[in-house]
């Protein structure tokens, strides 16, 4: 074991022995997310760097403390990218934090498979668990079904199972061409169109509706994007404007996200009708992700999300004391507790961050 | 699959052959997907792979019980599995031997054996036609389309036609239509008076010796015409065609008949094999009319038994029909010879599924190529059900 990792392991073992909670935190760009962090800070940024990257293998293996910006710049130099377009939410974002948060950006809206959620691209990890064991799960190849897929569970786990040490991530070539189209329409029309277009072989790579305006991004080959632009019509945005816009969607820097009104992320089946809740709305991911700025009681918002077949997360702000995620069914909750007990029996990692009693 | 023959079977050629054929099965399970009974019953033992396993056990010396026989009896012998099988397992042949070995070790109960024997005698005997006529008279059976005028011109090209046993009684127009179409193409079809049932009915009712006798009788009946240069033995019931193709194999150990049987098998042609090259000549004689929406149900004996696929459909398209695609065209309709009588529940379920699939594209008529399928399907639908050659005959002005 590398000296740095040995230090981490000793720290974890000491914390376990003393039953002292540890807060896994690098740049702190996602402190706002999840239930309120607590515990002594364990900062993985001393474990930084790209361990392995061969563009023709479409895989990059990265230490958890590596800045996300460094990862993306290295990929861009080879005309490749992280296909889930993760938000940074600040300059200090690291790859480990990105994976632990499990948040994907606008590119997840893909109608084919090509792009998807963050966990779809995690191929392997090394994890330092609560016993101080360094586990190596998954691998660096495209397909791997040896053993349980523990790596992908770490995506979005908010660090509750252990410290992610390295991640091997599948990367993709950047699309040769992109175009963004804009349509004036109300929310029901936007949802109708998104679901219609989702059933057609179109290279959709992002969608956002807000304030009477639907914007669509197309990514792919020159020919594919050209024919899709012809098929869809609408007003084409200049590429520089479009890129700035999608960057703002990704980083939540649009005016919609400003201010202190609680921000809810409501995930629903893409065909779900408009939420029709009091508050401002932004629709993304072909209709599957709906942002809501609202002071309504959490119970009302959760009930509406559930009625539409989805779930609601208090993403930013608001009263975070009651748990920001949708509660689990008793059977799933029991499995979560037993998993936690297996990986982190002393409960040292990010206690309560994902589920209040976990 | 490796099979170690039990001592009792080690010197039996049929058992040796079955064990050798079993060797090519790699247990991939692709066959289950296209097995009609597995689709309904969902039990490995009611699919080809499980049946092969059951027969392997018998060959290895395990005494079968009625359960093994039940699963073998439920097989339709549609041979869809053979079409699917990438390793080329000749399932039908293994099954013939398997059924025989089971029956030897476990004779059928008196009643069930008797039913089978009576069926064989009745269906292929002289009493069947009068019985059908009586059924029609009593309105128990639907009326058949009249046969119409049969041509008697003699052409230079001559082929033999197997008239069949149950078909002339159930649907006399099929042979008449065949004769007319061939006449229009300048070919005389001769029917040998002494030829009769092809033997398939007895073969599938466990009466192997009876089936072989019928095969020998047919060979004798055709031999003079074969010697005289008949181009082919033409069939318009694909079930019989499959059986005739087996003559060479079934009689391979019969010194007196082996060579003749092989020759006969080599001369067998379904009408669907003979006509594609010739239908062009009929174009000037076709009636002008709107293309009719038809579905063609390919009998298993045509598509799996004789591996004739797509020929009828493309011919019908050439002749101006709109041939509609439908789901699961590879699956059996449940007729399968005497199966509809011996396994009525499964047979009816398969028929209903088949008719639902055939009816989905809203055809005006259902066409097929074997008397068993035609009768079976007609019993469950208000749509007209015809042999495709009858349809073709009706297009000719």
């Amino acid at each position, binding site marked *: 074991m590398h000296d740095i990792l040995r230090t981490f392991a000793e720290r974890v073992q000491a914390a376990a022995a003393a039953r002292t909670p540890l807060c896994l935190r690098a740049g702190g760009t996602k402190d706002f997310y999840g239930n309120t962090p607590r515990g002594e800070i364990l900062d993985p940024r001393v474990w930084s760097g790209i361990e392995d990257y061969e563009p023709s293998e479409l895989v990059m293996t990265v230490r958890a403390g590596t800045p996300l910006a460094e990862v993306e710049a290295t990929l861009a130099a080879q005309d490749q990218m992280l296909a889930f377009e993760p938000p940074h939410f600040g300059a200090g974002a690291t790859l480990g934090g990105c994976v632990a948060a499990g948040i994907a950006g606008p590119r997840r809206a893909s*109608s084919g498979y090509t792009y998807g959620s963050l966990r779809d691209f995690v191929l392997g990890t090394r994890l330092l668990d609560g016993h101080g064991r360094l586990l190596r799960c998954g691998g*660096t*190849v495209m397909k*791997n079904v040896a*053993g349980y897929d523990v790596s992908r569970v770490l995506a979005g786990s908010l660090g509750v199972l252990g410290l992610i040490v390295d991640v091997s991530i599948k990367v993709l070539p950047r699309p040769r061409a992109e175009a963004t189209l804009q349509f004036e329409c109300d929310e029901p029309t936007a949802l109708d169109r998104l679901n219609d277009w989702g059933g057609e072989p179109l290279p959709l790579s992002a969608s956002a509706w807000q304030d009477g305006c639907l914007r669509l991004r197309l990514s792919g080959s020159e020919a594919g994007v050209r024919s899709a632009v012809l098929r869809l019509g609408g007003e084409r945005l200049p590429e520089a404007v479009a890129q700035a816009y999608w960057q703002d969607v990704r980083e939540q820097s649009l005016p919609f996200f400003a201010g202190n009104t609680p921000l809810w992320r409501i995930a629903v089946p893409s065909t779900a009708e408009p939420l029709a809740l009091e508050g401002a709305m932004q629709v993304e991911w072909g209709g599957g992700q709906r942002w809501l700025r609202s002071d309504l009681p959490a119970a009302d918002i959760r009930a509406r999300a559930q009625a539409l077949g989805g779930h609601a997360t208090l993403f930013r702000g608001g009263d975070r004391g009651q748990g920001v995620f949708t509660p689990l069914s008793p059977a799933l909750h029991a499995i979560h507790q037993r998993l936690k007990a297996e990986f982190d029996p002393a409960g040292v990692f990010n206690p309560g961050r994902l589920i209040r009693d976990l | 699959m490796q099979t170690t023959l039990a001592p009792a079977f080690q010197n039996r050629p049929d058992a040796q052959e079955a064990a050798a054929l079993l060797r090519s099965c790699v247990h991939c399970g692709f066959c289950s*997907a296209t097995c009609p009974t*597995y689709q309904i019953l969902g039990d*490995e033992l009611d699919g080809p792979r499980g049946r092969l396993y059951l027969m392997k056990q018998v060959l290895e010396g395990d005494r079968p019980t009625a359960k093994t026989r039940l699963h073998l009896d439920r097989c339709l012998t549609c041979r869809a599995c053979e079409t*699917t099988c990438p390793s080329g397992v000749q399932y039908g042949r293994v099954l013939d031997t398997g059924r025989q070995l089971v029956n030897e070790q476990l004779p059928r109960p008196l009643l069930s054996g008797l039913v089978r024997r009576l069926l064989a005698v009745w269906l292929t005997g002289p009493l069947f036609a009068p019985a059908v006529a009586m059924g029609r008279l009593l309105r128990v059976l639907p009326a058949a389309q009249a046969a119409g005028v049969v041509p008697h011109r003699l052409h230079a090209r001559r082929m033999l036609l197997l008239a069949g046993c149950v078909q002339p009684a159930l649907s006399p127009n099929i042979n008449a239509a065949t004769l007319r179409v061939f006449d229009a193409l300048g070919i005389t079809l001769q029917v040998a008076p002494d030829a009769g049932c092809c033997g398939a009915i007895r073969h599938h009712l466990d009466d192997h010796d009876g089936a072989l006798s019928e095969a020998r009788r047919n060979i004798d009946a055709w031999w003079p015409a074969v010697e005289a240069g008949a181009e082919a033995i033409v069939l318009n019931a694909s079930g019989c065609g499959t059986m005739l193709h087996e003559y060479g194999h079934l009689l391979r150990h019969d010194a007196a008949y082996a060579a003749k049987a092989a020759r006969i098998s080599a001369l067998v042609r379904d009408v669907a094999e003979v006509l594609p090259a010739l239908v062009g000549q009929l174009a000037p004689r076709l009636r002008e009319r709107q293309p009719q929406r038809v579905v063609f149900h390919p009998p298993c004996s045509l598509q799996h038994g004789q591996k004739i696929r797509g020929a009828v459909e493309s011919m019908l398209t050439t002749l101006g029909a709109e041939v509609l695609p439908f789901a699961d065209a590879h699956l059996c309709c449940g007729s399968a010879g005497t199966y509809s009588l011996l396994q009525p529940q499964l047979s009816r379920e398969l028929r209903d599924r088949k008719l639902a699939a055939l009816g989905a594209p809203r055809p005006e008529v259902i066409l097929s190529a074997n008397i068993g399928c035609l009768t079976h399907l007609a019993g469950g639908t208000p749509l007209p059900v015809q042999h495709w050659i009858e349809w073709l005959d009706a297009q000719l002005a």
Partner: protein
Amino acid sequence: MDDSAVIESRPEVIDGLRRLLPARALLVAAEDTRPYECDGLTLIRQRPMAVALPETEAQVVAILKLCHAHQVPVVPRGAGTGLAGSALPHAGGVLLSLAKFNRILGVDRRGRTATVQPGVRNLAISEAAAPFGLYYAPDPSSQIACTIGGNVAENSGGVHCLKYGLTLHNVLRVRGYTSAGEPVEFGSLAPDAAGLDLLALVIGSEGMLALTTEVTVRLVPRPTVARCLMASFADVGDAGDAVAALIAAGIIPAGLEMMDQAATRLVEPFAKAGYDLEAAAVLLCESDGTVDEVEAEIAHMSQVLRDARATRLQVSTSEAERLTFWAGRKNAFPAAGRAAPAYYCTDGTIPRKHIGQMLKSIQAMEQRFGLACPNVFHAGDGNLHPLVLFDDSDPDSVARAEAFGAEILEESVRLGGTVTGEHGVGVEKLNQMCSQFDRATLDAFLGVKRAFDPAGTLNPGKVIPSLHRCAEYGRQRVTGGAVSFPDLPRF
């Protein structure tokens, strides 16, 4: 000789099952259960105490509860096409077949999902979705027969998963039961279900974490057109390099497959695909999308392949021809039955750059073990499927085949890959799991198993090797001992 004796029969369990199930849905006699003694992996066989063929979900729950109460193992089974023995029965257990759960519960055109029972065949989903211009993307070669329940258990791939993903990427929701018969639902129709992503754990867990009774899959729009480019190479190393060259050129083909000469010669008689039988290796590269897009991509791929020393290129000119190109590839495994009485297919995955080297290593092993080994690869994924041909009636041939397969897997691990890309570990690759993972990680896997199935009754003994087994395997590898499955009945 009964080489698969039931170790212990439990009359009280059998009696209980009789009360739960109609006679047609319970098989106990050896005559009936032996045909269930293996799945697609015939090297290892075991007769179960009983086979249950439930017809309702209530029966499934009752069986689970009964077995849980009596500590009797339950082994789920779909179509029995698996190649790693994940559905190998347990000697004292109940084999629970889900084959009768074969209904498509609904296809949602607008939402682009299909909800199906676990016994629905993979291909049947795409057939049901076809009228809406949609299909289910993962297409394992056995897709005609394999069921979605099995696909979920194995995280099955296919020839198009480089671009369209594995089962994991295309399943939204799995509903089922724990080993104790408690209802559970993983994932959801909405993105990113709350809590840990347990769906990712359940998919590929080889039926050890939960029993699946309903699956919702994502459907994707069928591309306007797909064409397949077939490229010949005079050297297997060139073909391997061409794969890396395509990816390096920024192309993600819809499918990228390789067959070596032995493989093309094996399948051509069945498939009649017109493969170049003189080429040392053939690559099948598929492009899909709009007409313009495909034309441009085919041109780009052709250029890259020519630069990578392709000796001949042929592009499919019709959908029928494209399907014929694939037919040989998809039927390659069972077609081995035409060349030898048995085949042993392994499933290692390696970094693409090592494909050429791996093929050469396998050629050397063919000499050493005296067995032929045609190769078909999911080249785009680096996923190998060497088919070791052997004679299962000759114990020596069987032993050499097992050793051959094991060595390929060891080589895969050595090259930085994995012992299984898509077929699963089952019982077949238990030994090699000891090479790929350290004990701590294997123990963590055992922890995952306990978290889902504390009683350990759901498909026990698969995937995760015991400490004892790894010690035994380590000793054999040192001494060159032969028996790779010391605690399993021999074939």
